[in-house]
């Protein structure tokens, strides 16, 4: 539910409640004051009736004067409390019963007691109350419509800068050096929000820049000593007096250096992938790239006498050539590395998916741990980062990577979406 809708709901609810309560109070108050006014009239009528009683010589007659309707009844009671009450009233002129207000009191005249009842019509007051109720209802309806329109159009307009800011935040990408843009707003809160987001973006960007520099520098610091060791060994092996066992030691050192270099490069690549820093995308025909890759790996494949079968159809993807290269390198490297001598590799490329399947001495692998960093088989010579890199590259392009074990083949499947 949008904030505007929440606001709408609350404001309408409150307005309705207040208007309703107001109408109820209005109704009673008007009734009360109208009665009061009537009672005052009645009191005056009573005084007139008393006067009449005193001046008239005969038995008092029932009379209709103006709207007053007075009735005199002789009574034996000595005392009677004056009381006002609602009653019905017969309008002789229109000959119908109407709501009325009456007063009764005791009057003394020439030694006798009379109960005087004076009744007036309340028709006018009723009409007034009806009118006021109607006007209030109309006011309520009008207010609702106005509120609705205000919320819908004016509030939406007010929120426009907010939505713009929201979109800018959603589109915010650390790797893009484009500045965070905003539309100026007259609303203080939005200006403040924009300012805060600006500051945050700048801070994040500078932190990110620092981190990036740190990663690069760390790699620099690690690579330089490795370069020193490599070149020292290159110099050392020029010594022809080295014994075979010494040479074999040096070969092992070379292997370790190349392993740590690879590891370092993989970690750097992963950190770049995490930050989506590689974005030189272009259209690539995957079929051609795969065929080139098979050619590039043919010596390794032949060396282990692996049979490679491929079934490829044209498939274009929009991706970085550099990353696709690494993706295929890792897929093929794994398929060869973990294969059997005289084993098989099946490569299938359709418009929907790429499958690289290989035979292996290992049985089904635990799919949930497979893509974790530094997860590797006991006999693996790799860094344990290969599949993690494959997964991260797939994630960057919203491909879905899955693993299946079928017919003694380990299958890595990439679904393009």
């Amino acid at each position, binding site marked *: 539910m949008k904030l505007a809708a929440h606001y709408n709901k609350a404001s309408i609810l409150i307005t309705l409640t207040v208007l309703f309560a107001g109408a109820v109070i209005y109704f009673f108050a008007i009734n009360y004051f109208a009665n009061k006014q009537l009672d005052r009239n009645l009191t005056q009528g009573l005084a007139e009736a008393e006067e009449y009683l005193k001046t008239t010589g005969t038995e008092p007659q029932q009379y209709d004067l103006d709207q007053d309707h007075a009735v005199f009844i002789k009574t034996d009671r000595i005392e009677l409390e004056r009381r006002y009450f609602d009653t019905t009233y017969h309008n002789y002129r229109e000959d119908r019963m109407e709501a009325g207000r009456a007063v009764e009191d005791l009057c003394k005249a020439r030694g006798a007691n009379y109960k005087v009842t004076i009744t007036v019509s309340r028709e006018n007051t009723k009409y007034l109350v009806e009118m006021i109720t109607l006007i209030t209802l109309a006011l309520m309806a009008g207010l609702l419509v106005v509120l609705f329109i205000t919320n819908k159009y004016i509030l939406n307009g007010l929120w426009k800068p907010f939505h713009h800011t929201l979109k800018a935040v959603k589109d915010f990408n650390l790797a893009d050096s484009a500045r965070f843009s905003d539309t100026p707003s007259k609303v203080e809160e939005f200006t403040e929000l924009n300012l805060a987001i600006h500051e945050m973006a700048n801070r994040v960007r500078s932190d990110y820049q620092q981190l990036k520099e740190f990663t690069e520098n760390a*790699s620099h610091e690690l690579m330089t000593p490795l370069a020193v060791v490599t070149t020292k060994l290159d110099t050392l092996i020029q010594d022809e007096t080295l014994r075979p066992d010494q040479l074999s030691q040096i070969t092992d050192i070379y292997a370790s250096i190349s392993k740590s270099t690879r590891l370092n490069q993989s970690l750097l690549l992963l950190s770049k992938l995490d930050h989506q820093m590689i974005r030189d995308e272009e259209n690539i025909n995957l079929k051609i790239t795969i065929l080139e890759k098979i050619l*590039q790996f043919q010596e*390794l494949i032949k060396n282990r006498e692996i049979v490679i079968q491929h079934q490829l159809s044209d498939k274009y993807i929009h991706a970085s050539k550099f990353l696709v290269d690494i993706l295929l390198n890792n897929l093929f490297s794994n398929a060869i590395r973990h294969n059997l001598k005289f084993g098989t590799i099946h490569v299938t490329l359709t418009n929907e998916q790429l499958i690289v399947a290989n035979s292996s001495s290992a049985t089904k692998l635990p799919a949930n741990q497979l893509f974790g960093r530094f997860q590797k088989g006991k006999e693996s010579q790799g860094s344990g980062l290969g599949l993690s890199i494959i997964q991260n590259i797939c994630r960057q392009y919203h491909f879905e990577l899955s693993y299946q074990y079928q017919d003694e083949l380990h299958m890595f499947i990439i679904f393009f979406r």
Partner: protein
Amino acid sequence: MVEDEAGLRENITGYLNADGNICESCERLADAVNKLAGFQYDCIILDIGLPDGEGLDLLEYLKTNLRNEAVLIISARNSLDDKLRGLNIGADDYLTKPFHLAELKARLMAVFRRKTLNTNNLLSFQEIEIDLTGRTIKVNQQAIILTKKEYDMLLYFIANKGKIIAKNAIAEHLWGDEMDMHDNFDFIYTHIKNLRKKLMDAGCPDYLRSIYGMGYKFLAQ
């Protein structure tokens, strides 16, 4: 060579100071500018991260002074941006640390040859004559046919003649370091065997010597 790491400086100058080549080295950008002001060089090996500035600044210096030296950048930074930036401002090649000395020498020879291709597109070693533009090889005036890998290997060996080259250095040169060789270099042997056979069939002496378990050496004469 401009490089601030003393260990690297020693080994590189030691390796390159042979066959009548002279390699001088310095540690800082300012020294490099001083040396360049006084002498004409063929090639410059340039580290990017130097104590007194970016190595790339030297490229600007070379450009503004219309200098003709071939420049090979050696850097620990493997980022594509740096590579492209270096090559855009006028470097001829970019080598990422760590590297083998043999690789450095081969690349250095390649950029130097490329710079001087107009005047010299023939590379000869003893009775072997290589046409660098046509990528053809003649031994004793007799054309021989090499595969791409064998051709690259021959150039690589000639650039590093007289030096022992480790197997993984050869593998990295021929297949690139992106491809994980799984520490299995058996198949290099096939290419070496074929190259040696073709050269010897054409009348060359046996230049290639195998160094036990380690690698190969292309004899200097």
